[in-house]
């Protein structure tokens, strides 16, 4: 949950970083140069000895740093202060340095004291720097608690609610609750004091003891462990808080008898989440709320009052759990009259190893996790790194006094910070690229679409978890991946490829392998490209066909819609035309009615007598008015026939009867010109199914025509016959001049007039025969003409009998 840095020598190892934060080392150097710091060019002989070359010595090998970019940061020059005594790197990559009465932060570019530069923050001596989520930094000082969050600095003192000023531990549990523990109690802190200011929300009353807490630890299961001294009995106790309940473990049954009160030194959590506790001589593990002793080491139980003098048991039997799950305990052991360092390792398999050589490395050592699951032991004499078969010592700064190490810190950007009693140094580890070699034989000819290429990539620390691989296939798109996993290529297409692999360490140094060419040939069924070609071919054939069909369909629909719309418009136009004709004929007839009314009145002597000559003139007026009336009627009839609106009112009629009536009507006109109209036999002919008025109209027309074109004294014969085969024939023959053959075809055309043979007193409009033919055909009959010029003409038509028209 939270990480802390305690005063004194020691290391903090940062988790592996991603490639995105690799570029910070160089700006740091630039910034230092801007500050006028001259790099101390320390030439160190480096020899990176392989583990296999380990000697029998206690120090099996050395690991030297060629620190061409070693830089010293002088706080004396920058801030006129002594050397910092504590440093810390927060999770956002910012370095924090506790110096004198202030804290200085460095983001790689600028160095900035928390109080803005006066170096008079007055926070006292920083015992610990603790980071909680946010990131929020807590500086545990002897004057209280200082909190840095979102660029703001808050201070909590005793009169702000803290039990005492001397806060020993700040811890954040899994639920985000912050706890500050001091020698007088435990306070719950929250950021609800207005403007996000931290404030003490409550003081926890521990029901069973008066604790003097000196350590706190948040476990993965959500509990917070506190290690404290019980003042009443002057004995060390350990207790737990979880879900609002306090659990006093020192009083639980199952407490090992040899867990001596007053002699608890350190606690930690093993990889399984169990609590580990060291006492003077033993290592205990609390599993399933039961204590068990898992290791013992020779130690000296301090005098009972010693715990009170050194309540935090500094550097005594400290626990470190390394990445391979081993539990390391480093402390001081009584060796004769003096206290000497001791180091034990308890592997996960339960094997105990003692490293007596640590005794010669100098005092004030501490442990930290190193690269590749190793452990670094940092003493005033130097740094030792554990290896499989021994220890190797880091050769640091032969020309500079790098002894008297206080703290070593491997920053996330790959830099190595050294804090000694003499100064602050930084090795920008950006001069040497990482090692990168192919592991095994890389294939050059593949028969499947997936391939795996293993590499071995290590930075100068020999670790691969700080190295990021950059993989590019065929020079396209660089993909980053972890260095410890093989490079996996999927869905390779058949053909030639080349693979480029580079490795980038935390300092941004890059090593690139030569491009690796390889060839992929796939069996047919894995050839996605062939399938694609097949599909595309189908698409090229199918899609245009579908598109064309769809296009045709669309065009057809458009045409249909256009036709329908045109049809609607035509129907509208046709109706308008019919209405127009009907209206016009009505308007024509109205004055005609007046004319004929007055003419008839005059002719009949209404209003006075007229002379004979006047009568003749009036008759001419009347005849022309009648002609006009016929013309109007004919036009209307034609229009009705044309528009299909002529309704036939059919009944069973005898043609002979109709002809008789018409002949009777026209007889006076025939007599005027001595024309003989005779009607032949045919009264016994079958009846026809027809509109009597319309058939009368036909007879009136063709007999009237015959009268008109027959010279005086001529003959007209009307005949009605049947062929006994479903037809009734009627013919009107005259003895006129006849019709030339070339005109016979056109005689039924509208407005056609036979030229120059008019003998009657009135002309026709040339519409009568056309209407007759239409009317006959409306009755499913036919009409025609036979004529010989000089001999006369015969107009004939036939209609179906009632019987045949019903079938």
């Amino acid at each position, binding site marked *: 949950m939270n990480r802390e840095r305690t005063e004194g020598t020691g290391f903090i190892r940062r988790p592996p970083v991603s490639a995105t934060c690799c570029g910070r080392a160089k700006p740091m150097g630039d910034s230092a140069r801007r500050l006028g710091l001259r790099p101390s060019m320390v030439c160190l002989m480096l020899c990176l000895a392989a583990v296999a070359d380990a000697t029998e010595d206690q120090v099996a090998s050395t690991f030297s740093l060629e620190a061409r970019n070693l830089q010293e940061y002088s706080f004396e020059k920058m801030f006129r202060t002594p050397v910092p005594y504590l440093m810390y790197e927060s999770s956002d990559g910012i370095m924090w340095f506790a110096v004198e009465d202030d804290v200085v932060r460095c983001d790689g570019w600028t160095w900035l004291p928390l109080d803005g530069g006066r170096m008079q923050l007055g926070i006292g001596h920083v015992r610990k720097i603790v980071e909680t989520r946010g990131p929020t930094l807590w500086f545990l000082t002897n004057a209280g608690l200082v909190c840095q969050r979102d660029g703001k600095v808050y201070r909590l003192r005793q009169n702000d609610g803290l039990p005492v000023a001397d806060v020993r531990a700040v811890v954040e549990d899994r639920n985000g609750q912050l706890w500050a523990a001091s020698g007088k109690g435990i306070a719950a802190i929250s950021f609800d004091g207005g403007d996000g200011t931290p404030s003490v929300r409550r003081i926890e009353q521990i029901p069973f003891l008066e604790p003097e807490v000196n350590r706190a630890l948040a476990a993965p299961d959500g509990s917070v462990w506190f290690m404290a001294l019980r003042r009443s009995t002057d004995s060390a106790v350990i207790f737990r808080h979880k879900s609002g309940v306090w659990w006093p473990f020192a009083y639980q049954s199952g407490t090992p008898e040899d867990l001596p009160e007053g002699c608890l030194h350190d606690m930690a959590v093993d990889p399984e989440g169990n609590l580990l506790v060291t006492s003077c001589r033993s290592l205990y593990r609390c599993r399933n709320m039961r204590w068990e002793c898992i290791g013992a080491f020779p130690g000296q139980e301090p005098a009972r009052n010693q715990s009170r003098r050194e309540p935090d048991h500094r550097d005594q039997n400290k626990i470190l759990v390394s990445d391979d799950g081993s539990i390391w305990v480093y402390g001081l052991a009584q060796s004769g009259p003096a206290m000497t360092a001791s180091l034990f390792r308890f592997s996960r398999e339960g094997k105990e190893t003692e490293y007596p050589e640590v005794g010669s490395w100098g005092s004030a050592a501490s442990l930290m996790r190193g690269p590749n699951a190793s452990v670094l032991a940092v003493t005033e004499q130097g740094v030792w790194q554990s290896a499989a078969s021994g220890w190797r010592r880091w050769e640091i700064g032969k020309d500079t006094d790098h002894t008297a190490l206080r703290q070593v810190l491997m920053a996330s950007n790959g830099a190595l910070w050294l804090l000694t009693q003499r100064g602050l140094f930084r090795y920008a580890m950006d001069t040497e690229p990482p090692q990168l070699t192919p592991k095994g034989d890389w294939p050059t000819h593949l028969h499947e679409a997936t391939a795996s290429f293993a590499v071995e990539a290590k930075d100068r620390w020999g670790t691969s978890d700080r190295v990021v691989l950059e993989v590019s296939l065929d020079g396209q798109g660089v993909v980053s991946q972890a260095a410890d996993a093989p490079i996996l290529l999927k869905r390779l297409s058949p053909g030639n490829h080349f693979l480029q692999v580079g490795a980038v360490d935390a300092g941004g140094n890059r090593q690139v392998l030569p491009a690796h060419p390889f060839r992929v040939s796939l069996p047919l069924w894995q050839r996605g490209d062939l399938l694609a070609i097949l599909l595309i071919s189908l698409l090229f054939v199918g899609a245009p066909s579908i598109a064309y069909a769809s296009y045709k369909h669309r065009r057809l629909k458009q045409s249909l819609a256009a036709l329908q719309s045109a049809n609607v418009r035509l129907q509208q136009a046709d109706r308008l035309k019919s209405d127009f004709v*009907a209206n016009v*004929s*009505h*308007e024509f*007839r*109205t*004055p*005609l*009615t*007046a004319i*004929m*009314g*007055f003419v*008839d*009145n005059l002719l*009949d002597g*209404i*209003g006075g007598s007229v002379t004979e000559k006047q009568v003749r003139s009036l008759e001419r007026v009347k005849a022309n*008015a*009648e002609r006009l*009336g*016929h013309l109007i*009627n004919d036009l*209307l009839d034609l229009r*009705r026939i044309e528009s299909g*609106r*002529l*309704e036939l009112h059919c009944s069973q009629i005898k043609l002979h009867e109709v002809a008789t*009536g018409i002949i*009777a*009507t026209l007889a006076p006109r025939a007599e005027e010109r001595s024309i003989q109209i005779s009607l032949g036999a045919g009264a016994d002919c079958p009846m026809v199914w027809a509109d009597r*008025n319309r058939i*009368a*109209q036909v007879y*009136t027309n063709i007999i009237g025509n015959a009268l008109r074109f027959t010279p005086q004294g001529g003959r007209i014969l009307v005949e009605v016959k049947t062929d006994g085969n479903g037809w009734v024939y009627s013919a009107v023959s005259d003895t006129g001049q006849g019709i030339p053959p070339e005109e016979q075809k056109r005689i039924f055309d509208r407005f056609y007039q036979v030229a120059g043979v008019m003998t009657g007193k009135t002309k026709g409009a040339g519409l009568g025969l056309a209407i007759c033919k239409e009317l006959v055909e409306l009755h499913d009959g036919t009409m025609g003409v036979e004529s010989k010029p000089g001999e006369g003409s015969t107009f004939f038509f036939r209609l179906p009998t009632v019987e045949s028209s019903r079938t």
Partner: protein
Amino acid sequence: MNKKVLIVEDEEDVAQAMCDRIESWGLETAVAATGRAGLEMLDQIHPDIVLLDIRLPDRNGLDVLRDIRQRSADLPIFVVTASHGSDIEPRAREAGANEYILKPYHPGELRRKIFKAIGLGTTDSAESEQSPGTHPG
């Protein structure tokens, strides 16, 4: 007292010619130029027969016909029109018309039908008339 004929006709000349003709038969005439005037005169003069045009300036002649028929179920009403639409005659007869006469009217046909409708004989007619059904066509 002479029989009275009410002519509802908006065309003055047509109405005048008809009046002249009808008065020559010894009947009295009255002319209304609109449908509304026709209905008013119907109440004033109590005609024996009405000759009604279909196209009138104010109202549809068929509506006027229905109104007249509503007031008097027995009054002979002739529709005299220049509209030769095939559907008009049935509609006119449905609305209560006794006769349907097309313009230009034939004087003899008109006289015969009027005299028949008002119960006068036709024997006094000295006019030479053509038989019905010979409307020029």
